């Protein structure tokens, strides 16, 4: 209460930039930042420190870690497994991000043109898909693609006339990732479609009408009028999709539990987990994590620069 009245006082005075640190915003920020410092900041610092140390099972049980400079990084970067895993992750993420963005945008545009009833039907469908936990979704899709009694094998047998029963979709890495991509895209579309739809409803209709009076067709109106309005939302959603898809974990991990050969289907998220947790090699696990963050930072550098400029 006290905080809010102070907040109002500041807006009234409307100083462009405070000269000395104010107590109220600091107090308001304190709980969130203490939580973040303890539970994210400290583990991240430890992860970075361990990436420069020989840190394995012995160290977990109390031996002193030894500083080995870039040892872990050279080990990781000269390991062909790492490159295979990285390549796989990038390819999977690329397919998923492109498909999710294109389909999500198409659905969002479609929703703006639908009548009220159909729009509600579509958004309820999207919400149901969104509400489904990644783990549950993976299990259900795993059942749909089940080797013995799966719906897909039944459908393929009906359609092609060949016998598909007993066909395992998860054994072959390529079709494993096909199934994984379907699960990831299906799970991500609701967030993208609903966010973009929310953005599209903000586009003033007068501007669109003016453009169509000037003779702009649907596509030109979208590119020249609508898109500039929603560009910032599109970029945020795109960056988040890249980040989330590149470090996808639950779907791949659960799908590997149902079927599939781990070594040939690991993505970078699962690889970090197996390095750190199952093998206890925290040093190399930390190094891979740092490399992944560096890659993601490089991808989003443009966006970060843009945000910093816009916030001035």
């Amino acid at each position: 209460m006290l905080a809010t009245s102070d907040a109002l006082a500041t807006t009234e005075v409307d100083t462009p930039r405070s000269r000395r640190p104010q107590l109220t915003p600091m107090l308001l920020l304190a709980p969130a930042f203490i939580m973040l410092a303890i539970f994210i900041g400290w583990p991240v610092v430890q992860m970075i420190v361990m990436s420069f140390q020989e840190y394995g099972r012995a160290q977990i049980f109390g031996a002193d870690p030894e500083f080995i400079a870039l040892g872990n990084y050279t080990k990781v970067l000269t390991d062909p497994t790492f490159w295979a895993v990285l390549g796989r992750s990038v390819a999977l993420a690329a397919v998923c991000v492109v498909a999710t963005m294109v389909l999500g945008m198409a659905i969002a545009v479609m929703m703006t043109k639908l009548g009220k009833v159909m729009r509600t039907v579509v958004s309820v469908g999207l919400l149901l898909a969104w509400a489904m936990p990644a783990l549950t979704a993976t299990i259900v899709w795993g059942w749909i693609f089940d080797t013995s009694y799966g719906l897909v094998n039944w459908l393929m047998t009906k359609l092609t006339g060949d016998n598909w029963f007993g066909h395992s979709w998860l054994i072959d890495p390529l079709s494993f990732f096909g199934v994984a991509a379907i699960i990831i895209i299906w799970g991500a579309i609701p967030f993208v479609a609903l966010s973009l739809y929310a953005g599209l409803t903000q586009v003033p209709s007068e501007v669109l009408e003016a453009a169509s009076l000037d003779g702009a067709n649907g596509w030109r109106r979208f590119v020249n009028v609508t898109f500039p309005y929603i560009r910032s939302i599109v970029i945020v959603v795109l960056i988040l999709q890249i980040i989330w898809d590149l470090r996808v974990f639950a779907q791949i991990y659960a799908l590997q539990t149902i079927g599939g050969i781990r070594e040939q289907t690991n993505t970078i998220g699962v690889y970090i987990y197996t390095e750190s947790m199952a093998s206890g090699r925290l040093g190399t696990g930390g190094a891979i994590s740092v490399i992944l963050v560096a890659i993601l930072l490089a991808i989003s550098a443009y966006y970060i620069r843009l945000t910093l400029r816009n916030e001035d």
Partner: protein
Amino acid sequence: MKGSLLSRSLLNVAAVIVFVCSVFPVYWMVNTSMLPGAKIKSTTPSFLPESLNFANYATALGDGFIPAMWMSLAVTGLTLVTALVFAFMAALALSRFTFRSRKSLIVAVLVIQMVPAEALIISMFRLLDGWHLVNTVLGLSAVYIAMVLPFTIWTLRGFVQGVPADLEEAAQIDGCSKAGAFWRITFPLLAPGLVSTGIFAFIQAWNEFVFALVIMTREESQTLPIWLRSFLQATKATDWSVVMAGSTLMALPVVIFFLIVQGRMTSSMTSGAVKG
């Protein structure tokens, strides 16, 4: 927008396709959960449940669902409430005060999203272990709160900025106190933002699986995702119909929460509009 009858109906067909594709796996889960165990091993799938058969639900329920559900509810509830309060305070500070950390916050949000959680688990486990918080609701919630905070602060900040401070000033001219103006004018307008941010926090905490797996080591402190996974492994040949019943039970609270929240969201938006 005018459109011919043909393009209208094509549009509606597309909408139906989107709906069916979104909902089919959900339907298939519920459908399978009603099948008797023997029926599942059939070369022709049954597209409709022949009868409402809840035997699989009884099996799943009798196998540890209830304690896991309470655990999940406790962790999710604590995460949701605390994260919303903390994020709201931070969002207020970041949008109604002018100082530098705004920019760094936005960057921090993105960077935190990039750090693979899988690499932090051991450090987090040790931290919690040192404070005797392993296997506790408080411990897991603390981790979840920290994980959802950046995104919730970020989203809420956008919503707070969307409410013009003039509205409050106008109310003060009409005789409201400063705090009264905030709670009567700004807060209702922020309700949709709190709701959608809440949805995000709820889904994250309810569905999270890796941290729960490592931090909640005791069987009696399992959350629902861990319970569901142990189910998959315990039964050697997967009993799909029971697993689907379990999955349905786990998804049900989320669907109920969404339905409640949907109504709130529209009503708070309309009430906000009337007041504005």
